[in-house]
């Protein structure tokens, strides 16, 4: 199951729990008696919530994409530059417009399971660089002008990956697509 679907399921469970709680309280609104031990219940509620937050932070904070495979040496560098409304993807550095037009529209091929370092930048506005496999978003990084964002990634499946722009970059944003082949 993809991360997205796990998050969705978790969300739906929380959704149902919250609805259930509110609904039960709503049902109880006609009865008499009033709530008992409010202060104690509030304290318990707070500490459970506080503990949950700490737990989740402890589990999830180490799992960030910033230092992904930082300890290993990449075996392939891939340079990506975005420009309204196309990507240039190349194993050479792309430093200027000539480099860009040489690589734009060219599909490169990389190896499955090899560590690739994507060096992602933009020549004009902010774009997004995202890797889709069979319609599932696997990884992404922003392509911001003036910065080269380095994303290290290992493709676990062979076949064609789709690259979509994920940051609104103007009228043809939806059509900004490229491909990369994995063998």
């Amino acid at each position: 199951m993809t991360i997205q679907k796990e998050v969705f399921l978790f969300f739906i469970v929380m959704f149902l729990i919250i609805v259930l709680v509110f609904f039960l309280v709503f049902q109880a609104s006609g009865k008499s008696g009033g709530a008992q031990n409010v202060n104690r219940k509030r304290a318990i509620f707070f500490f459970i919530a506080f503990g949950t937050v700490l737990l989740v932070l402890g589990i999830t904070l180490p799992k960030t994409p910033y230092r992904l495979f930082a300890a290993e040496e990449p075996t392939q560098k891939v340079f990506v530059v975005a420009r309204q409304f196309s990507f240039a993807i190349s194993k050479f550095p792309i430093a200027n417009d000539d480099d860009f037009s040489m690589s734009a529209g060219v599909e490169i091929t990389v190896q499955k399971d090899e560590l690739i370092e994507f060096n992602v930048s933009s020549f004009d506005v902010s774009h997004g660089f995202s890797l889709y496999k069979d319609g599932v978003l696997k990884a992404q990084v922003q392509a911001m002008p003036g910065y080269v964002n380095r994303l290290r990634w290992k493709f676990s499946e062979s076949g064609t990956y789709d690259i979509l722009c994920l940051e609104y970059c103007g009228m043809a944003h939806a059509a900004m697509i490229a491909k990369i082949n994995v063998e």
Partner: protein
Amino acid sequence: MNTFDKKSTLLWLLTVLVVFLVAIAFGLTMRMEQAEITEIGPLNFYILMTSHGLLMAGVWFVAGMAGIQFILSRYVEVPRWGSVFAYVCTVLGVVVLLISTLLAKFHAGWYFLYPLPFYAKGTEHGLLLFMIALTILGVGWLMWSLVMLASILKKYSIAQALAWHHIAGKDGPAVSPFILISFVSLIGVTACILAAVVLLVLYYLEFLQNGGMTSDPLLMKNLTFFFGHTLVNEMLYLGLAVLYELFPRMAGKPDYKTSWYVGISWNATLLIVLFAYFHHLYMDFAQPVAFQYIGQIMSWFAPLPAAVVTIFSVLTTVYRSNMKWSLASLLYFFGVMFWAIGGVGAILDAVIANNFVLHNTQWVPAHFHTYNLLGNVFFSLAFTSWFADEIGEKKIAPGLVKVIFSLLVVGGVGFVLAFYLGGALSVPRRVDMYNEIVSEGITLAKLAVVCASLYLVGMIIYTIDFTRRCAGQLFS
């Protein structure tokens, strides 16, 4: 209640309702385009998207203002010119905004991420008009916030308004939660409007220099989200402040008191909210990693004080109470529920590891529409309904309450669910059409069109009924 307060609030609320209907129509059209029902083309789509985003953010901020101002005038004297000035600026700003988008074709999105506005050829006039619109709105709202802050400060000192004496257990004037929360939110509003000022100044400079000067895109993005995120966050708190004032009375319970923990939680919120915006930059690896971690930590702690205290209070208020359910109390109670649900969606996305595959997918509009469409809007509509009950001569028909409430809830939930599913299926946000890679988006958009239409019908009925009951007061 003096007639000025009554009439001005009525005018604010009527304006909000009308603009809301227009903005929903824009949103519905976008969804229809994505569902391939209409074919207005990308330019028109993004023009509508830009208008929709800013109109919505603006109009519900303004609704929060109307509520705050009305309740605040029960505590302290609020100068009338502040309200009039803000109203004129808001209307003028919205008109210029619509000209900049609909006529001058500005379409860089509601938070106009730098340097996109400078790269849309042929829309230079649009950009200038857009900046002017933002300037007018900014000036109006900043003045309004300062006037409100000053009104509160006439009665309470800063330390008192922040309830520090309640926290320390010292003597002092009783500060109601309404005053505390409004004060905290107004401070936040002032800070984020000032961020917009810095941002706009940089935009103006670059515009005038015509390319001679450029700014650091990372700096601009930080400023943009300091402003955008914080504004949307604070506007929710404006609605909550009013809830704290009105809700217990609806349930026939004693007023909420500012206890030490209420004091602490809103003081904490004041600080935490200012750092939460970092979560908009998770996928900018240029931002130092320390900021990213602070972003996630603050995003997770942000809801804790405010939400825990509010949700718990609302639940215990309703539990075994003699609540006579009206449209206002229903909207408040279930608004809090959907606010909590949207909050869950938000903090899931605020986990950096999740954001890696959710950022800029439809998960983002999913969660913020939940706590806007079904949370913040419900809070403001609750105030509007309460207000109509206070001043209107005619009563709302009980059957109509059920119809309106069901339409809003069913339509709203279905509408946001389509977005959540889109997030789960990696459907990107802000695209006018779905290519074959993410073609599920089309089906989801169709579902959303049906549900949004239900919501729109509910809002139309609501607006007609509100006008029928209250509009006469405007001229009495």
